[in-house]
């Protein structure tokens, strides 16, 4: 098991090198001029040149690359000029916010989508199947920023049930001491239940927004995969042998149907993490997506590179986790390297 993990991690190294080179080149190919941007509103041509020197952008590309790789090797991911902070600090403070939201959204999506998919598969053509199809279609076709704004408008502005979309916590509460960076967990560690409730309330609307969006692929995949498995020979055999319907459904059918669902889950997760920018914008969520977009708009090289690199690392870990999880669901998948 351990050797498998090690082998997989080693195998990821060429990918990471590729990512580093490509993001470096891509950011440099952006049309903007960061020096002109950071010179500010009254920057003269001299001021721009001065700033270019300060940012080290007057050096040649290979030189800049060597400096970048050397810094990276020593754990220095560079500076975000837009926020004035080290990129690594920014990423480590913002990533938990995005992860907390994404995981919550995914969790909600899974607990709704999988039962819905199973029900739809066991009763194809019934009202529940149509409901599943309806929700899935609506979920994918509504853009997340629209769902977000709509939910905020209805549940916050009109009904007043949801808390104000002001980020991760009500302004009058202060954040729990950082352990994991997840407010829900940190507030429990600190035994501060007021903050826990506060953080949970803030999470509800953005979580529903995200969950609605990813409900579709999960529910559809569960349904399709279950339908496929349910018509397989071994299920017919199990049924013929007189096994209880629930045993057939969960112990045999569902477990076998789970593999493609897990693959989708992995894809959806990585997709969500990178693309929940709009939800973050709508709910003023201080996550990694809005950070990356702002950096891109400002042609701020270091954070863009840092963002892509951290995403690459995350993908590698995610793929590894899913591959290992395959092994638990289906022993046939336990292949070494």
């Amino acid at each position, binding site marked *: 098991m351990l050797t498998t993990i090690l082998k997989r991690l080693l195998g990821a190294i060429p990918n990471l090198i590729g990512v580093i080179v490509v993001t470096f080149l891509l950011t440099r190919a*952006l049309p903007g001029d960061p020096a*002109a941007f950071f010179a500010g509103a009254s920057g003269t041509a001299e001021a*721009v040149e001065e700033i270019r020197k300060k940012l080290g952008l007057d050096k040649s590309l290979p030189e800049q690359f060597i400096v970048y790789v050397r810094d990276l090797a020593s754990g220095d991911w560079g500076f975000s000029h837009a926020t004035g*902070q080290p990129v690594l600090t920014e990423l480590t403070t913002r990533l938990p916010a995005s992860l907390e939201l994404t995981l919550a959204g995914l969790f909600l999506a899974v607990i709704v989508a999988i039962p819905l998919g199973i029900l739809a598969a066991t009763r194809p053509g019934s009202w529940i199947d149509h409901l599943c199809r309806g929700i899935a279609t609506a979920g994918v076709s509504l853009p997340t920023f629209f769902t977000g*704004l709509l939910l905020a408008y209805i549940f916050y502005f009109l009904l007043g049930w949801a808390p104000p*979309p002001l*980020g991760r916590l009500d302004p009058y509460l202060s954040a729990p001491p950082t352990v994991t960076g997840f407010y829900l967990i940190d507030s429990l560690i600190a035994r501060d239940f007021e903050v826990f409730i506060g953080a949970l309330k803030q999470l509800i609307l953005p979580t529903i927004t995200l969950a609605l969006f990813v409900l579709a692929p999960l529910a559809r995949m569960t349904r399709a995969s279950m339908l496929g498995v349910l018509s397989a020979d071994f299920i017919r055999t199990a049924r013929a042998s007189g096994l209880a319907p629930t045993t057939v459904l969960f112990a045999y059918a569902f477990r076998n149907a789970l593999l493609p669902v897990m693959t989708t889950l992995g894809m959806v997760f990585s997709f969500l993490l990178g693309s929940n920018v709009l939800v973050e914008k709508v709910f*003023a969520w201080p996550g990694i997506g809005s950070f990356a977009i702002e950096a891109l708009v400002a042609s701020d090289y270091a954070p863009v590179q840092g963002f892509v690199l951290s995403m690459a690392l995350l993908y590698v870990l995610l793929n590894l986790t899913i591959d290992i999880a395959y092994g638990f669901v289906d022993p046939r998948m336990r292949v070494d390297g």
Partner: protein
Amino acid sequence: MKSRTLLCATSIVLACVPALSSAQDKKQETLIVANETGPNMLDIQGVGANRPAYGVAWLAYDRLMTYGRKKLANGVMSYDFAKLEPELAASWQIAKDGMSVTFKLRKDAKFHDGTPVTAKDVKWSYDRALAMGGFPTFQMKAGSLEKHEQFEAVDDSTFKVSFLRKDKMTMPDMAVPVASIYNSELAKKNATKEDPWAATWLKNNTAGGGAYKVASYKPGQEIVYERFDDWKSGPLPKIKRVIQREVPSAGNRRALLAKGDIDMTYEMPPKDFAEMSQEKGSVKVASVPAENSMIYVGMNVTKPPFDNAKLRQAVAYVLPYDKMMQNAIYGRGAPLFGAKKPVTGSDWPTPTPYATDLAKAKALMKEAGMESGFETTLSFDLGQGTVSEPMAILVQEALAQLNIKVAINKVPGANWRAALLKKDMPLMINRFGGWLNYPEYFFLWTYHGQNAVFNTMSYKNAEVDKLIDSARFETDKKKYAMDVKGFIDIAYAEVPRIPVVQPMVDVAMQKNIEGYTYWFHLQPDYRQIYKK
């Protein structure tokens, strides 16, 4: 048993009463503000400090002097450029020869960590502004503050500035946010050999003595200010705590304000401000035309076809001014077109004589020999898209009447500065505002032959240059007004840029918020604000 529950209940109620009223107090003394962007660092002198960072300097640091305040005609308070008032300096004296000024510092002034403010700190801060390069250095230069030798700490409470020349911008320049006074001992403790001015440390920490301390700062999320109770440089602010959050979605900020969850917001699209000022809700809008600034259509005079003044006038006569005011700017500004009276030289910005007149425009096209028209590109900054995009479409429509085919080029915010520096856009919509409220300061940046980046038209005229330079150091009021009238008249006749509107600075707030003041740096000043 029964009495016990009753007792219990009473004690709970009693325990709740003070808690309730203190929560009430907390709300009364706390201000919640939501804006689109927050400060990217806490040091205004740092490389790349953004606009909201000016606001941090304004609150967490003091200057030697500040400006007075006055009530505008529409009832909104504004700073008074003509009146300098003491802040850290208790008094000052200009030398008889007019070539230096001596400040006496307040004896009781302290920094946030309790160390007294001395002239050494002032000297260090001014030296730092010159040494940091970029924006702070240029801002100091705008007031002829250019050399370290100009600043002298005579004793602990006496600070002297020698003038290089008699420049009327020198004194006001010492009251802008860049001229903030830093706690030099604290900063030096956190400086390194490579970073003698503690630029890294000061990005995330303050070393000031201003009315508010930065209680917490999370870049990209929020900044929380707490009142500095030992502040002596002015009346103690009434608001004890300010929470300034970043909420990027303008629609949400409007909803938050309407629901009473925030007290104040800046930077909304003009349409929202226009609607909010009409609504009869709990929200009010304070509006002031931004001083010394305009939104304009600029034309590059170095290249054909816009090197032809007749053509430029034709364009100035065909622009749909009223439509732009209604459908792009939503009336949030003072029109800079259709003047009935000649330029006086004492008002700035002042309207041009141009108004929409298709017949005149067509005649001018004929004179210019361009009746058959041509193709060109109109560029604008996507960062200003809420106003510039509808404006661009209206301009495109209008110019089609003169057979000018316009393609629209949207430039992303990050690239706009670079695009301006290249000076190759034939036609653009842009805005510019100058901090120091003098017309010659505006013209120095935007029309002068030194061709600064904001002279987006690359306009050069020796006569205009002479008048600008002369106005800057002219002390005779009559001659000064003549100079100003002179360069405005030429600029409007040759019309390399067509002024459209002097935009409004709007701030929306709850009705119970009082004491809002407009400042030239456009950042909120919580020191005068209180809740009714």
